């Protein structure tokens, strides 16, 4: 049924259709509306046979999910930013134990400086934790990916993060098709665990493993992700056959025919990128884009196949791997090895900085003229940076950086154009 809904509400309805048995959460912007909606659905009975547990921290939230999943319940939680870092130890643990928990990340920057707005620093910090990571472009896809995520997680016994851009998606109202319950039931079979705490067949889960077997256990974790490379497209096509729309998959190419410049990105900014590409195509530019849906596992071959005929690659990233560049570029460059293409990393949208069509177009034109650096920053105000660098040079006690930069800017709101 088509509905005009807030992204968070739509995601919550999608989760509810998946019939989770244990939902636990700790509030953090911009994840709150998702779990509030689920709490309400459990209270009203709309989501029956589900325990909703209000915990005292994100570390506890995921730990509760770990226990519940190991005891055979379909388990869900959601977080963002500081919350994801706070549960970091449990994030690795859930993957190491092979528990098919699904977790929504309402993508948000990480402090300091504390910032509630969107970028991908949070989920990127967990990219090597052993979770599958899927990035949604729209709220429809966000909802759909959650339904696919449970199927994928449970098929592989591997946890899945569905990454949804904070505010841009979580708080945006869009027209969304809510799937029918019977379709979801047919698509997603009940959870049948490969390991479970059972009095009739006792097992010990979480044993200590030394050098004699640790590498094998870890390799098997890697194998799951390799299997996911096969499974994600299969699940996506099964999904589109049943629900009559395309969602998910490994990558999503856009107007790649004859494209000399290809833009690679994750998540909602692909919408803006596509608009700019349409505009530039109309003007005769040979440009296209590739949205990466599955960041873990990283689809090296699919990315390579999509990019190999281009002349240049622009990798737009909402996360800065401080001291190196961008984490998405690591994967893209690896997929390009031997092709002669290297890819230009452009860091954009940090801490909610708007990524405008105007800036993107200027960037792509610059790329076409081969004027991009290997690592560039979109809309970085060099003047402000230089003022602070000067200040630091002049005075030893130059004071807190964030406060100084804010002072240089004046009012904050005026910057968000």
């Amino acid at each position, binding site marked *: 049924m088509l509905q005009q809904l807030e992204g968070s509400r739509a995601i919550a309805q999608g989760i509810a259709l998946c019939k989770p*048995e*244990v939902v*636990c959460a700790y509030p953090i912007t911009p994840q709150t509306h998702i779990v509030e909606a689920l709490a309400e659905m459990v209270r009203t009975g709309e989501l029956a*046979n*589900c*325990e909703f*547990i*209000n*915990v*005292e*921290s994100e*570390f*506890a939230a995921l*730990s*509760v*999910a*770990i*226990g*519940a*999943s*190991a*005891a*055979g*319940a379909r*388990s869900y939680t959601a977080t963002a930013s500081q919350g994801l870092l706070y549960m970091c*130890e*449990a994030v690795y*643990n859930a993957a190491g*134990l092979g528990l098919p928990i699904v977790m929504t990340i309402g993508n948000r920057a990480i402090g300091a400086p504390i910032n509630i707005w969107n970028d991908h620093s949070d989920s990127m910090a967990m990219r090597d934790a052993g979770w599958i990571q899927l990035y949604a472009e729209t709220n429809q896809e966000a909802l759909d990916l959650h339904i696919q995520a449970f199927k994928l997680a449970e098929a592989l016994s591997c946890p899945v993060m569905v990454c949804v851009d904070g505010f841009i998606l979580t708080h945006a109202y869009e027209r969304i098709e809510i799937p029918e319950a019977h379709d979801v039931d047919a698509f997603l079979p009940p959870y049948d665990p490969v390991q479970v*705490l*059972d*009095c009739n067949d*006792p*097992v*010990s*889960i*979480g*044993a*200590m*493993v*030394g050098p004699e*077997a640790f590498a094998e256990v870890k390799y098997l974790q890697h194998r799951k992700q390799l299997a996911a490379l096969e499974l994600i497209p299969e699940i996506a096509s099964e999904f589109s056959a049943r629900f009559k729309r395309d969602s998910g998959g490994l990558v999503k190419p856009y107007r790649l025919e004859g494209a000399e410049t290809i833009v690679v990105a994750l998540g909602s900014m692909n919408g803006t990128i596509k608009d700019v590409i349409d505009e530039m195509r109309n003007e005769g530019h040979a440009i296209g884009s590739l949205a990466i849906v599955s960041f873990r596992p990283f689809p090296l071959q699919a990315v390579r196949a999509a990019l190999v005929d281009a002349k240049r690659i622009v990798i737009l990233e909402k996360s800065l791997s401080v001291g190196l560049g961008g984490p998405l570029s690591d994967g893209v460059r690896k997929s390009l090895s031997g092709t002669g293409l290297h890819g230009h990393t452009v860091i954009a949208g940090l801490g909610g900085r708007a990524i405008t069509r105007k800036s993107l177009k200027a960037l792509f034109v610059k790329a076409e003229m081969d004027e991009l650096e290997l690592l560039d920053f979109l809309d970085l105000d060099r003047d402000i940076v230089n003022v602070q660098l000067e200040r630091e040079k002049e005075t030893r006690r130059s004071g807190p950086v964030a406060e100084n930069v804010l002072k240089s800017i004046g009012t904050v709101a005026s910057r968000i154009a």
Partner: protein
Amino acid sequence: MPLQPIKFYQTGTFTVGNRLLDESQRTVQANMRRTNSLNSGHRACQGCGEALGARYALDAAMQATKNRLIAANATGCLEVFSTPYPETSWQIPWMHSLFGNAASVATGIAAALKVKGKQDVRVIAQGGDGGTTDIGFACLSGMFERNDDVLYICYDNEAYMNTGVQRSSATPPAARTATTPAAGAHPGNSFGTGKNVPLIAMAHRIPFVATASVANLHDLEAKVNKAMTIHGARYIHIHVPCPLGWGSHPSDTLKVARLAVESGLFPLFEAEHGEITASLRLRKKAPVEAYLKLQRRFSHLFGEKPDRDTIAMIQAIADRNIEKFGLESP
């Protein structure tokens, strides 16, 4: 036939008492059919109080639940010595996740059992003092406050033993640990304000809180039994000597544990909904010195020039306990 008086020469244990009891009143441990939930073959040190305490508690809980029990375990000696991959000593469904999250994992297990309609299966969380009173404290308090259907058992050996005997918030004053060396003006652990987690548990007004000692098996089992008759959050704090960390003789584990109780340093009591309902009166009171002297972690207090002041301060703690918890024999 005239009655013939029998003399018992064995003193200081309750073993004989157990045999004289009616079978229904005997300990679970005395029963040939005990489950050995934590089976032999594990890698604990000789005389490990924690291994003893865990078997006592879980066998009792197994009997109380007709073997319908799942345990979540914090990282620590108990976890490490019981599950060196691919071996396990656990005869029950058992799970280890992390150091600080056993209470939350147990909450999750209990929630899953509830939705699955398996409420006959009961859940225990267990950890060392570090995993309970320090790093797992937030999860523990959350589990209490929500009154989740979990019995949490803390095996208190008064330090981080698994990592090599470092101080925890349960380490007693003056005790030497690897991070509170017996050196300087005030050797050993400092006299802080203390952190009595059983009392903190009571402040949550959860249905049941108890302290227990491996030296008093009947009492320990009775408390576990009682805990299993109750639903909601429950907490049992068991004092478990660690020969390695305390520098006591492995054969003295029960003696040391008993002296902790008899000196008043480790009072045995139970509480319901935040109120103390019973405390174990001391049949015979021991001076703290008798307890301290058996342990090398306190050896800097003795020797040629005993540290009378410090010993007196420890005695004062014991005396205060005896008064506060009403341990004086009637």
